[in-house]
């Protein structure tokens, strides 16, 4: 029997095509994280009193938190659907490494949940009266930070994928791991607000992203193997 086996790009293409199709079938869902972040921002504004000065001072931190929490809520959909219908088993049986498929899936999940959020950020920043000068730093920190959050979250989502309901446990596991990302992400905005150089924090985020790109898919793949035992 002569086989046509997929290489790494072929399997990645198949998986990306599938995810894009699924997204298109449920295109309404793609806006939910952005909607959630909008709601968080609105609630913060209501709680803080809506004064432009007050809002501007905390805008960077609130926007980072809104994005982080929206990503946290979306985390459960990363592998759960594929675990429940048996797709993950087929991934494990495929002739490409599971870590590669996990990396591609995490990238697609980031592109479908965090990227719309990133595009909506200037709008949200306007709601929070973020000083214009801080917007580029905020966007850069989010662009580097949200993939990092997705990769760290992928490990946690993989660890909890075998449970029927993970609920609050995902938050308990993921949030402590998110601390450095939040600190450097929100910190870079705070630094630029104080007139300090934000580049250092951004570089650290970038370095973290490179390391996580290599290690997180491997850890998540190992976690999936454990969870589907």
């Amino acid at each position: 029997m002569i086989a046509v086996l997929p290489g790494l790009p072929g399997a990645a293409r198949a998986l990306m095509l599938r995810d894009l199709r699924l997204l298109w079938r449920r295109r309404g869902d793609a806006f939910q994280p952005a909607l959630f972040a909008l709601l968080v921002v609105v609630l913060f504004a209501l709680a803080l009193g809506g004064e432009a000065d007050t809002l501007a001072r905390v805008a960077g931190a609130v926007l980072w938190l809104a994005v982080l929490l929206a990503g946290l809520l979306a985390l459960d959909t990363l592998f759960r659907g594929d675990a429940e219908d048996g797709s993950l088993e087929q991934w494990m049986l495929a002739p490409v490494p599971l870590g590669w498929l996990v990396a591609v899936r995490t990238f697609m999940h980031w592109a479908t949940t965090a990227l719309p959020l990133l595009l909506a950020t200037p709008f949200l920043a306007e709601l929070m009266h973020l000083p214009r000068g801080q917007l580029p730093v905020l966007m850069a920190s989010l662009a580097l930070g949200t993939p990092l959050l997705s990769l760290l979250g992928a490990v946690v989502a993989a660890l909890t994928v075998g449970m029927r309901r993970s609920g609050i446990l995902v938050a308990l596991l993921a949030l402590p791991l998110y601390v450095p990302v939040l600190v450097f992400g929100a910190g870079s905005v705070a630094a630029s607000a104080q007139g300090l150089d934000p580049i250092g924090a951004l570089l650290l985020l970038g370095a973290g992203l490179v390391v996580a790109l290599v290690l997180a898919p491997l850890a998540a793949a190992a976690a999936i193997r454990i969870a589907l035992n």
Partner: protein
Amino acid sequence: MTPTDRPAPPLLQARGLRFARNDEPVFGPLDFSVDAGEALLVQGDNGAGKTTLLRVLAGLLRADAGEVDIDGERARAARRSRAIAYLGHLPGLKADLSALENLNFLCGLQGRRRGQVPESAMAIVGLAGYEDTLARQLSAGQKKRLSLARLWLSPAPLWLLDEPYANLDLAGIELVNRMVQAQLRAGGAALVTTHGAYAAPPVRTRLLMLERPILETAA
């Protein structure tokens, strides 16, 4: 039987295969082999470990002891993924994709035989005309047939079929038997689990009876 008796090594050979869950033995130690052109019928009661055995052979679970050889070589992950196609309880179909899209994705992920296309495989399993139907709208039997089409496209010589007859009508059972026959004629082999002998492919078969292991109990 010494290895010199046969010219080619068996397609699949298990030696001293054992698996335990939470320290309770599920099966084993098992010794068996399957040659190319042969089917191995795995029978046993509920809980005898049939599904677990297939999952261990597929590499989804790790055996606690023992070895599995494929074509006379130790079965590593890369080797397994090329040699083994697994049909489990979960079909691995996305409900929001059409039948053909599902099949295309799984072929893209796992590879396919040269000369086979998803459309013809769908016709073979009797799903012609259902290409654009969403998987969520298929019946349980039709989903099973779609999984069989995936199996048919798979380039792997060794099929691990877990309860392939479940959810199928008489024509479907006949279809499974025909597919297994064709696979064996092409030099492949199949492991089939059933809990009764009511349906078995009319091919050269070996039988592996699994029994529920006696648990070690207090005094």
